[in-house]
C-alpha cells in the first residue's frame, strides 16, 4: 500500500516547534548528588556554617531577616502543606479512576499523607533517624525510588495501559498540571520543604509518564499534537 507523500506545512511545523520550546522534563539530576559536588567545590556552605561559601562573591546588600530565611508565616506553611496534600489526593483520585497502578500509587500516597498529617505519629525522641540530614537523605532516596518505579510501571505495565482510556489520562494530565504549578509556587517560599519537593518532582515525573501513556492509548490514526 503506497504511503502518503504529503508534507507538513511550514506553519504546522512552527506550531510543533513552539510546543517543543515550552516542554519541560523531570530534573535529570538529583539535588543530593549536586549538593555533594557543590560542597566539594566550596560553592555550598556546610550546614551550620554562618560564613560565606566562596571568596569571589561581590559585597552583599543588607538583607532583611524576612528575605534571608525565605520567611513565611507558620500558618501559611501549614496552609501550603494542606493545599499540597489536597492537590495530591485529587491526583491520586484521578489516577485511581482508570488504572490499577494508579490505585496502588494513590493509596500509597494517601497513606503517606495521612501519616504525615497526623502529628501524634511523630516521635521525635524515638525517631529512626539520627539527624535531620539522615532523614533528608532517606527521603531523597525514597523519592528517587518512587520516581523510578512509577516510570517503570508507566513504560511496562501493559494491563494498566490498556485499562486507561484517553479521557481518563487527559483528566489525569490536567490534574497533574495543576499540582505542578501549585507545588512550584509553594516551593518559591519554601524551597527546602521536603514534602513540597516530593510532590513537585513526583508530579513532573507522573506528567511525563502520563503523556507517554496517552500517546499509546490513542487510536492508531490519532496523535498527541498539543499538551
Amino acid at each position, binding site marked *: 500500500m503506497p504511503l502518503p507523500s504529503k508534507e507538513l506545512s511550514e506553519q504546522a511545523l512552527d506550531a510543533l516547534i513552539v510546543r517543543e520550546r515550552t516542554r519541560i522534563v523531570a530534573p535529570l*539530576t538529583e539535588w543530593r548528588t549536586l549538593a555533594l559536588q557543590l560542597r566539594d567545590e566550596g560553592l555550598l556552605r556546610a550546614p551550620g556554617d554562618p560564613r560565606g561559601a566562596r571568596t569571589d562573591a561581590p559585597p552583599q546588600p543588607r538583607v532583611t531577616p524576612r528575605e534571608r530565611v525565605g520567611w513565611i508565616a507558620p500558618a501559611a506553611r501549614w496552609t501550603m502543606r494542606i493545599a499540597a496534600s489536597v492537590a495530591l489526593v485529587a491526583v491520586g483520585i484521578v489516577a485511581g479512576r482508570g488504572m490499577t497502578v494508579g490505585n496502588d500509587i494513590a493509596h500509597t500516597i494517601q497513606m503517606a499523607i495521612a501519616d504525615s498529617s497526623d502529628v501524634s505519629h511523630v516521635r521525635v525522641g524515638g525517631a529512626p533517624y539520627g539527624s535531620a540530614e539522615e532523614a533528608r537523605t532517606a527521603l531523597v532516596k525514597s523519592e528517587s525510588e518512587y520516581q523510578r518505579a512509577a516510570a517503570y510501571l508507566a513504560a511496562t505495565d501493559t494491563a494498566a495501559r490498556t485499562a486507561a482510556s484517553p479521557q481518563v489520562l487527559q483528566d489525569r494530565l490536567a490534574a497533574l498540571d495543576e499540582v505542578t504549578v501549585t507545588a512550584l509556587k509553594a516551593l518559591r517560599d519554601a524551597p527546602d520543604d521536603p514534602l513540597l519537593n516530593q510532590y513537585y518532582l513526583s508530579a513532573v515525573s507522573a506528567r511525563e509518564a502520563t503523556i507517554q501513556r496517552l500517546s499509546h492509548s490513542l487510536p492508531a490514526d490519532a*496523535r498527541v499534537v498539543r499538551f
Partner: protein
Amino acid sequence: MTTDQLTVRRAIDGDERALRQLWMENAPHIDAVVLRLCGDRDLAADIAQEVWIQIFRALPSYRGDSQFGTWAHRIAVNRSLNALRKVRRIAKIETDVEEETAAAPDDPAAESERSFMAQSIDQAVQRLSPGARTVFLLHDVEGYTHEEIAQELGITPGGSKSQLFKARAKLRRLLAHFADGFAGAGPSHATPF
C-alpha cells in the same frame, strides 16, 4: 532588586535553600534544553550535572539584566555543546553541510524516511544528521541567530542557513502524518489539550 537577584545573592553566599530553589525552579526547563541537544537521556543526565555546576560557578557574573532562567539557558546551551564536542557527537559539522544532499526519489534512504512515522517532533529530530539537528534546535527552538550559531559551531552563517533549510524540509516529511491534526480534521484525529 528582583526576587531572582535576591535569591542569586544568597546562592552566591552558599545558602543551600537559595541554590536549591534556583535548581528546583529552573531544572525542568534547563534540563529539557540539555536533553534536546543530547538526544540520549543517560548522556544528558551526565551533562546536566556539569551544566548546573557551571551555572552555580558563574553566579557572581549574573547581573540581573535578564531573568535568571534566560541567563542560565545560555550557559546550558554552551556547556552542552562543549560536552557534546568532547564525545564527538557534533564533530565535522562543516563536512555535514557539504555532504548532505537532497535524496533522490528512488533513494533507499528516502524510502525509509517515508516509512518512518515520528510520534513527536523530538523523535523526528533524532533522525536528522548531528549537524542539522544542532542547527535546527539552536535556531528554531532555542532562538539563536545564524550568526550566533556560526560562531558557536565554527561554521559560516550560510552553512547554518543551509543546514536549517534541509532540517526543516526533512522534518516536514517525517511529521507528515501530523498534517491531519492541523488541517481541521477534528479531535478524532488530533487530541489537543
